[in-house]
C-alpha cells in the first residue's frame, strides 16, 4: 500500500512544479517533501556507488549534538530564575519556567530565519539549505534569556542576510552566520547583551547578581579564584553549568558532550576543537606564570578559562562550522589554536569586554582563507609538478 504521506506529496506535486499554480513556493514544498522522503536519484556518472551521508544527515548530527546544551540551557534558565526569585524550585518547574523563556527565542529565530532562507531560495531558484537548521538553533543559544524577541528577529535576520546570503548563500559565507547575528546584537544593543541580563525573571533578591563569571574580578588584593568562589562561581559549578550566562554556554560538561558527538561522528574536525583547547590552555598557563595581576583573570589558570564563559561552546559549535573555518588541516590547527590564544588575551587584556571567544572566532573566520592560501602554497611547492 502506498504511504499516505507520500500520496499527499504526489498529489500536490503538480501544483508546485512545472507550470503549477504555486510554482513560486516550490522550495518550501520541496524542503518539506525531502524532509520526509530522502530523495535518491540514480547515478549517471562515475562513481556509481555513493556514500550514504548527505547534508541533511550532516546537519541533523550537529543539531543532535546541540540537544544536551539546549535542554540543559532550558533547565538552567528556570533554575537561575528560581534563585533570582529567592526560591528553590523543583526540577519540573525549572524546566517549565525555562521553556517559557527559551522556547519563544528559539521559535522566533527559526521562524524569521526560515522566512529569509525561503525568500532567498525563491529569488535564487535553489533549494533550501539544511545549514539553517543549525544556525537557527545556535543563534538563540548564544543569547541571554532576557533578550527581547524583536531583537532575536533582528539578530537572526542580520546573521542570515549579512552573514551568509550577501556572500552567495551557504558554502560561500566567510563568517559564521549565527555569530554574525550575535555580534550585531552585541554592538547594536549592548544593554540587552551585557551586565545583569543573564538571569530571567524580575525579582532579583539581594546578593544575586545577573552577571556572568567573566565579569568577576578580585577586589582589594583578593585573588580571582577566591573572588569567583565568593560570588558562587566555583570550578565545579562552572563545569556543570549551574551559573548565569547565555542559554547554551554555561555548562562545560554539556559542551564537551556535544563536542564528543561531533568528533566521534567526524562531523566536526577535531583539529579545530583540540587545537583551540590547547591554544587556550597554553596561553592561560603562560599568562598565569607572569607575576602580578592576582585579582584579574590573568591569574585564573587554564581550568577557569576553560569552564567560564562561552569558550567551550564557541570552539565546539561555532568554530567548527566547516564553511567559515579553514579547509586545510594545518590551517585548522592554527585556526583553533589562535582562537584559544585570542580568547585568553582578550579576557586578560580588556576587562571591559570579557567575552573574547566570539570576537576571536569572527576574527579568525576572516583570516581562514589566508591560512588556507598559505597552506595550499606550501603543499603545491612540495608536489612534483605535473604540467
Amino acid at each position: 500500500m502506498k504511504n499516505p504521506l507520500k500520496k499527499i506529496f504526489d498529489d500536490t506535486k503538480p501544483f508546485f512544479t512545472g507550470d503549477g499554480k504555486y510554482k513560486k513556493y516550490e522550495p518550501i514544498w520541496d524542503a518539506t517533501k525531502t524532509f520526509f522522503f530522502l530523495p535518491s536519484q540514480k547515478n549517471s556518472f562515475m562513481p556509481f556507488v555513493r556514500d550514504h551521508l548527505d547534508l541533511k544527515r550532516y546537519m541533523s548530527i550537529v543539531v543532535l549534538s546541540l540537544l544536551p546544551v539546549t535542554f540543559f540551557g532550558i533547565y538552567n534558565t528556570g533554575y537561575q530564575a528560581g534563585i533570582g526569585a529567592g526560591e528553590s524550585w523543583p526540577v519540573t518547574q525549572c524546566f517549565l519556567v525555562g521553556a517559557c523563556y527559551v522556547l519563544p527565542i528559539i521559535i522566533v529565530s527559526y521562524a524569521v530565519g526560515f522566512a529569509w532562507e525561503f525568500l532567498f531560495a525563491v529569488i535564487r531558484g535553489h533549494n533550501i539549505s539544511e545549514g539553517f537548521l543549525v544556525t537557527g538553533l545556535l543563534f538563540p543559544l548564544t543569547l541571554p534569556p532576557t533578550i527581547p524577541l524583536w531583537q532575536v528577529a533582528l539578530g537572526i535576520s542580520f546573521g542570515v542576510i549579512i552573514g551568509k546570503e550577501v556572500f552567495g548563500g551557504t558554502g560561500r559565507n566567510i563568517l559564521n552566520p549565527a555569530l554574525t547575528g550575535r555580534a550585531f546584537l552585541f554592538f547594536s544593543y549592548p544593554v540587552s547583551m551585557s551586565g545583569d541580563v543573564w538571569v530571567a525573571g524580575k525579582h532579583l533578591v539581594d546578593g544575586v547578581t545577573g552577571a556572568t563569571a567573566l565579569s568577576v574580578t578580585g577586589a582589594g588584593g583578593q585573588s580571582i579564584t577566591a573572588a569567583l568562589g565568593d560570588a558562587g562561581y566555583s570550578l565545579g559549578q562552572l563545569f556543570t553549568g549551574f551559573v548565569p550566562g547565555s542559554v547554551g554556554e554555561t555548562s562545560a560538561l554539556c559542551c564537551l558532550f556535544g563536542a564528543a558527538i561531533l568528533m566521534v561522528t567526524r562531523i566536526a574536525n577535531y583539529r579545530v576543537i583540540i587545537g583551540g583547547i590547547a591554544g587556550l590552555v597554553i596561553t592561560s598557563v603562560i599568562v598565569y606564570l607572569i607575576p602580578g595581576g592576582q585579582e584579574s583573570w590573568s591569574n585564573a589558570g587554564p581550568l577557569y578559562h576553560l569552564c567560564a564563559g562561552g569558550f567551550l561552546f564557541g570552539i565546539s559549535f561555532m568554530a567548527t562550522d566547516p564553511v567559515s573555518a579553514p579547509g586545510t588541516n594545518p590551517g585548522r590547527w592554527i585556526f583553533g589554536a589562535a582562537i584559544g590564544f585570542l580568547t585568553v588575551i582578550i579576557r586578560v587584556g580588556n576587562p571591559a569586554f570579557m567575552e573574547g571567544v566570539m570576537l576571536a572566532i569572527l576574527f579568525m573566520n576572516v583570516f581562514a582563507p589566508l591560512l588556507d592560501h598559505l597552506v595550499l602554497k606550501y603543499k603545491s611547492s612540495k608536489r612534483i609538478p605535473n604540467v
Partner: protein
Amino acid sequence: MKILKISRGFDLNVAEQPDLNCAQLALPSSLGCCAGDIPHIRPKLLVKEGQRVKTGDALFTDKRDTTIQYVSPGTGQVEKVIYGHRRRLMEVVIATESEDEYVEYDPVDLDGIIDMPRDALVTVLKKGGLWQGLRQFPALDFADPDHSPALIIVVMDGNDIFSPRPGIILKDNITAFEAGMAVLRRFSNRLAVVCRKSSLEGIREQSSSVADQITHAAPDIYPAWLPGAVLYQIKQQAAENSTWYIRLDHLVMMGRFLLSGRYPVEKIVTITRPGEQHPHMRVRQGMPLSALIGAMPGNSIVTTGRFNGRVLEKDAHIGFFENTVNIIETGPEEEMFGFARPGLDKPTLSSTFLSSLFRRPANMDCTLHGETRACINCSYCERICPNDLMPSFIMKALHAGELEDALALGLMDCCRCGLCSFACPSKIELTRILSDAMDAYYKDKQ
C-alpha cells in the same frame, strides 16, 4: 619487492566477490568492437554495413593516428554501425560465423622480439590492434611511440575491486607474459610490475618466475593498484610524469599476438551481481552484454566498474578496456526519514551511521543518497583521495577559471578513481569536474 603504502582510499569490504573458478562461454551470435571506452579517440570507420570481415581486420581507426587500428574480434558480416551523441561512432557490430578466419601475421619468438627493429615492432602492434593497450600518463592517451618513457608500469589487476584475478589471466599464458615483457623492455629500461597483495598467491601458483618479477605489491585498499595511484606513489621526478602503463590482460594479448601471428580474441571477464557469486568467465573480446549476464535485472544499472567505468546499455558490447561488469541495484527511490535512520546497513566514510561500528560487507546501491548542495569545506574528499589532492580546492579553482591554480594544486595527478565523488556529502560530481578539466587541458595542448 616493495610494498606500496597507501593510507587513504576505500578500505574494501564489499559483498559479491566473484568465484575463482573459470567458466567458458560459447561464441555469441554477435560481437562488437566498441569505441565508447577509449579515451580521446576520434574514430574513423573503415568498413561498411554488410561487408564481410575476418578476425583481425581493421574496423575503425583513430583520425589522430591512422596507423592505429581497432580490429574485429570475430569473423562475419558487419551487421550494423551504431552512432552515439553527435554521430560519434560507438560500436561496430559483427554477425559472427562459427568458424574463425584470421588475418595472419608472421609469428615471432622471444628472441625475435628482442632482435626486431623497434619501428617494425610498433608497426605490427599498431596494425594488429594491440598498440593502444599501452597508455601514457597523464592523459591516458595511447602511448606515443616516439617517446622513450622513463618508466613503464605493468598493473596486474584491473580497474575495479572485483576485476579478474591475475592468476586466472596468467593460466596457460606464461610464455605470452614473457613475450609481452620483452616488448616493454624494448621501450624502457625501467619496468615496475605491480599487483595487489591478495593476488600474489594466485600468481605464485601459476608461475613463480612471474611472481619473482613483481616489483611492487599494493595493499588491498582501493585504488592502491590503479596505475595512476601507483605512479603517484613511486614517482620521483617530473620526467616520470609521462610514464606508460599497460594492464596484464593487454600485455598477455600482445605476447600471444606476436607469438602466434593472430589477433588473440580471448578475454577473462568477471560479473558481480548482488547476492550471487559468479565464476570468472573466459569469453570473446567484444562480447554482447546480453550473452554475459542474460536478462538484465530491472531497476539496476550495469557498469564496467563501481568507482570508475561507464554505464552499459542493454544491447551494448563490452569494450577493449573493459573486463568487469557490475550489476548494481537501485536502492529505494525515496526513503522515509532517510536522514534520521540509524543505518545499520549503510556504508559510509563518516561515523554517522551505526554501520560504522561493525565491519559487515557493504551492500552498495547505485543511488546518490541525497541532493546536490554547495561545498561546505568538510574535507571528506581530501581525506579519501589516494593522491594527496584537495579536490574541493581544485574544483573551486576550476570554477573560478584559474586553471593555473588548479594545475599547481596537482590536477593532472588525479587518477580518476572516483573516491572524492563517492565521499562528498554535498554530492558534488568532483571526479567528473576534475576529469573533464584534465581532458580539456590535454586537448588544448595538442
